[in-house]
């Protein structure tokens, strides 16, 4: 190989590398500067202090963490722990509810075609595209002691006064979150169910499997990947939701995002906020690990 040829190839390789740097550089630096760097600062600030003029004073103290976990009446008796556990419970209930509701609908969607398919799809997708705050707000006048549900119930001879479960509170929050996140679950489940070869189901039916056996041994295992992804995409945002309890819990309880926001807004305690939000990152990291293990990027589009 002549020197000139070698030189040419070297230039080409360099050109290739420059092109690649141009393609990835801006996007990657965006991610580094706006995701990775802030997360690193978050960790650092969680050990720092904030002075009276609200500037960060770099130090290493665990007082923010102590504040999270040690309350006046003892260890783990703090508003933070209460809200965190409650938020985990609410997020878990929401996830289970969306799975139970979305599975049959997703399966039905894979069996439909043409006009019916489009109609069902339209009916379930419109609420999905209306903005989140509107979806949550839409439950506001249904719940409450004077809400539509209770005023209709009171009008019947069945109950004497407003029913507790339809007041603002836990049920209102879980139901509205289920309503808001249902389409995420539906779409991920649908795309994994759609990938199942229907021939496998027919074959198992021909071989004598009952419907229940087919569901248990064929459909659910083959769609497990979509199920896991769907759970992650419902659980994580449900855990960190702020607007939902603000609108529908009406002070009956506070979720984790409300505790952190209140501290930062009222006391400018960004160090406390940083320490607290790190505990929200833990479920996120678990979620990330699950998604990376079960899904390929090509399948996530």
């Amino acid at each position: 190989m002549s020197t000139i040829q070698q030189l040419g190839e070297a230039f080409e390789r360099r050109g290739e590398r420059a092109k690649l740097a141009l393609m990835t550089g801006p996007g990657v630096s965006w991610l580094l500067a706006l995701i990775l760097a802030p997360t690193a600062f978050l960790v650092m600030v969680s050990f720092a202090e904030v002075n009276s003029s609200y500037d960060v004073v770099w130090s290493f103290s665990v007082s923010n963490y102590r504040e999270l976990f040690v309350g006046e009446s003892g260890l783990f008796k703090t508003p933070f722990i209460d809200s965190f556990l409650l938020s985990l419970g609410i997020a878990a209930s929401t996830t289970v509810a969306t799975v139970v509701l979305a599975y049959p609908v997703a399966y039905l969607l894979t069996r439909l075609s043409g006009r019916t398919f489009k109609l069902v799809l339209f009916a379930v997708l419109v609420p999905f595209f209306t903005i989140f705050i509107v979806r949550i707000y839409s439950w506001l006048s249904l719940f409450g002691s004077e809400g539509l549900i209770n005023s209709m119930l009171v009008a019947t001879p069945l109950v004497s006064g407003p029913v507790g479960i339809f007041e603002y509170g836990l049920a209102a929050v879980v139901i509205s979150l289920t309503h808001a996140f249902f389409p995420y679950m539906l779409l991920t489940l649908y795309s994994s169910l759609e990938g199942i070869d229907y021939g496998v189901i027919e074959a198992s039916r021909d071989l004598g499997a009952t419907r229940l056996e087919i569901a248990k041994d064929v459909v659910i295992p083959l769609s497990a990947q979509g199920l896991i992804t769907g759970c992650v995409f419902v659980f994580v945002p449900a855990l960190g939701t702020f607007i939902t309890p603000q609108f529908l819990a009406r002070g009956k309880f506070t979720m984790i995002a409300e505790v952190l926001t209140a501290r930062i807004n009222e006391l400018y305690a960004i160090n406390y906020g940083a320490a607290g939000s790190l505990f929200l990152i833990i479920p996120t990291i678990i979620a990330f690990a699950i998604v990376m293990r079960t899904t390929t990027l090509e399948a996530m589009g």
Partner: protein
Amino acid sequence: MADSERHGRLSRLVGEPGQTGIVSVDRVVSAVASYGMWALTIGIVVFLWLPLSQIIVLSFTESSVLFPFEGFTLQNYVILFTNESLLLAARQSAFVATTSASVATILGVPLGFAIARHEFRGRSMVRGLVIVPLLMPGIIMGISLLILFRITGFPAGFFGTVLAHSVYGLPFIVLPVIARLAVFDRKLEEGARDLGADGKAVVTDITLPIISPAIAAGFIFAWLRSFEDFIRVFFVGGTMDALTKEMYGMVVYSQGTEAMDPMATLIVVVVASALAVAINFRDILEYV
């Protein structure tokens, strides 16, 4: 529905000859499952639509509750369209969303190409990093960016929000581009090259037209996520107004609540009509 399935259903209905009278448990389960699935689906559609349709009705009523009913009016819409600060906030949110989604597109399309088509060091790390904005709870993104801006002295406000929303929107562009390129038939490009097209012509005439629906869908998603975001703009928006901030204030502080129902109704109507067109136009499920 496949013909065999239709045939299967028919034969199950009629039953095998000589088997009349024997109802198998499986056949009952089948029927229950099939009708049950429809019943559940209809129930869920009602569940999804009930709160929204109730708001649409409320936007035309005198009182802010359905009972006691006090008659229909357009007054709420007059209140909405004379609420200058709400309309301004809506325009501001649309502007932020358009800018952020555009930035995300400009950064995301080449990144998606590089990940899908090139081998480079750190590729798998970049692949992982791309989905983080999607999984990171909004409150963490908000607080951590607030801290970053505070430490670096970057001003919160329009530019801060655009930075936050553009990185938030990045996965919605990158992931569809990667997915689209994964099923893309490279032979089309090779063919064009064999027929004498240069690299540039291949990209503009073959590759981009094929992946552009994926980019367009990604843009719409990135736009919507920015437009509907509350918690990030709450932390990094500074004094800049946003539609979601206005709506939040209206509900929590009960100020000018009359405008809430008509605003929500307009959003539902716009979304529903856009979606109706999109569903009839293409197989949109490819892109969600």
